[in-house]
């Protein structure tokens, strides 16, 4: 399959989906250029998985136009399926089969022929560091191995577009690094990646373009650098000794958020040494005793606070 560079690998216009009276996706527009990594960032329940399920033809949308790899998702689902691979949050491997048998099952379903199927299976086992696991049943695999086998199974048909739904959720840091390297290698080979993640760090490392999904709507879209400009640069958390000190510090420092019970002040800051020194200097000048101090760099909570005006766990709390 050939696509011109100007053809986006994935487009969606006005994508809508409700389950019962719960609106999950409320009119989403997406465009992903071929050969790039697109990250859909959002908390649990934002609609990330639903978006992947619709774009990968697993479930139908209520409205909107979607094209993947040059084909209409609704009218030509099989053409889309032939061009994609999907790796879900919960790995879709056959537990009763071995690593190699799982791969050959996929090769057979792609009608690759016996010899070519075995060749690709052996190649993927090697590439994904699964050679040892080839003859073991998948049920005995560790989380990282399952995730790698899961992705390898998708790649046997040489897809042009790969959907990765939270590919590193629940993995240990080493397995996460391995998965990131695999994703980078895929992109180097010209594959388009549609990634969902809860981790800003992951999107930051991998994605060319990041879209932030919140309560079924895209609230921001841009490169990692562009998004970071939207986010205040973290904060410094100060632990005060007594309520009087808290009151004085709050007056001295101006715009802060305070927690009167815990005697904590949060001061916006880029976390740099210079601003830290300046802050401590001002507190010294007023002779305010600080018991403790910690520096917070921006995380997903900050992104959400900045973009939506509510912390990302609010949705979970409302349920």
């Amino acid at each position, binding site marked *: 399959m050939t696509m011109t560079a100007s053809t986006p690998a994935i487009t969606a216009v006005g994508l809508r989906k409700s389950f019962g009276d719960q609106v999950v996706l409320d009119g989403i527009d997406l465009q992903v250029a071929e050969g790039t990594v697109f990250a859909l960032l959002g908390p649990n329940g934002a609609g990330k998985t639903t978006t992947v399920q619709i774009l990968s*033809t697993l*479930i139908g949308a209520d409205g909107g136009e979607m094209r993947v790899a040059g084909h209409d998702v609704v009218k030509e689902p099989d053409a889309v*399926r*032939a061009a994609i691979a*999907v790796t879900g949050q919960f790995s879709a491997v*056959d537990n*009763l089969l071995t690593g190699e048998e799982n791969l050959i099952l996929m090769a057979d379903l792609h009608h690759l022929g016996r010899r070519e199927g075995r060749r690709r299976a052996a190649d993927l086992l090697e590439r994904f560091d699964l050679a040892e696991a080839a003859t073991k049943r998948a049920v005995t695999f560790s989380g990282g191995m399952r995730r790698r086998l899961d992705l390898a199974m998708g790649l046997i048909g040489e897809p042009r577009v790969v959907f990765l739904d939270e590919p590193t959720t629940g993995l240990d840091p080493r397995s996460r690094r391995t998965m990131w390297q695999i994703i980078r290698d895929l992109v180097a080979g010209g594959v388009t990646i549609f990634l969902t993640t809860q981790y800003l760090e992951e999107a930051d490392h991998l994605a060319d373009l990041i879209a932030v999904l919140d309560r079924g709507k895209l609230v921001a879209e841009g490169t990692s650098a562009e998004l970071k400009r939207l986010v205040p640069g973290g904060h410094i958390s100060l632990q005060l000794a007594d309520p009087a000190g808290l009151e004085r510090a709050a007056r001295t420092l101006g715009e802060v958020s305070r927690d009167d019970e815990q005697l904590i002040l949060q001061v916006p800051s880029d976390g740099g040494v210079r601003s830290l020194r300046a802050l401590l200097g001002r507190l010294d000048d007023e002779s305010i005793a600080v018991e403790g101090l910690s520096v917070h760099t921006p995380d997903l909570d900050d992104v959400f606070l900045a973009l939506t005006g509510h912390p990302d766990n609010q949705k979970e709390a409302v349920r």
Partner: protein
Amino acid sequence: MTTLAYTVSDAATMLRRSLRHMLRYPSLTFFVVGIPVVLMLLFVCVFGGTMGAGLGGASSGRAEYLRYVVPGIIVLTVATAAQGTAISIAMDMTEGIISRFRTMAISRASVLTGHVVGSMIQTMLGIAAVIGAALLLGFRPAAGPAGWIGAIGVLAMTALALIWLCVALGMVTKSVEAASNLPMPLMLLPFLGSGFVPTASMPAGMRWFAEHQPFTPIIEALRGLLTGAPVGSSAAVALAWCAGITLFGYLWARALYNRDPVAR
């Protein structure tokens, strides 16, 4: 390759997967064969003497009852095997692998077809094992080649009907536990028909139910074909029931498979 060739190839791939599952998860196969054999031993060796006396046949007793009960046991085997189908379908559906199949360009029918053909093979092997056990107990069927072919035909039709029904039951449930419980009435029906005692010995209401439920004509047709008793209209009634249940089970299963999977 043409679309049909792809469909056949995909179904064959899925069948290989199902057969491999049976080898890797043998307890399900043991269960399919084990329950009918244990019930046969119970009914023949423990109850057989008394039950045989009640039949009032020429050589009344254990041997007479064995001759009577084996067709019922064989049909029971089909029901337990179909219950195994519901369990393996539910296991598949609760794991992510079916979602993967749905997002691949493979024939949609192939997933279920692979399961059905695999279950047919499992059921027929189970029936052969149960007949083997019956022969060891002293069962001596009177059927000639035509009788055996007819018996195998009736059993294959019955198996196809119950398997498609259980494919749907395995999909309509949300868990493997529920899938193993839901087909339970199928295992009871041979008891509530002519499987273990003649319907004539039952009280009026029970008897009416026993004579009009699908398992009775199936068991009667099989009994006639195997033991040389008159088959009468039971074969035609049995085949009509099987055709109806197959069609219902197939359409239901297809509708369940084609609907959107419930979002997590």
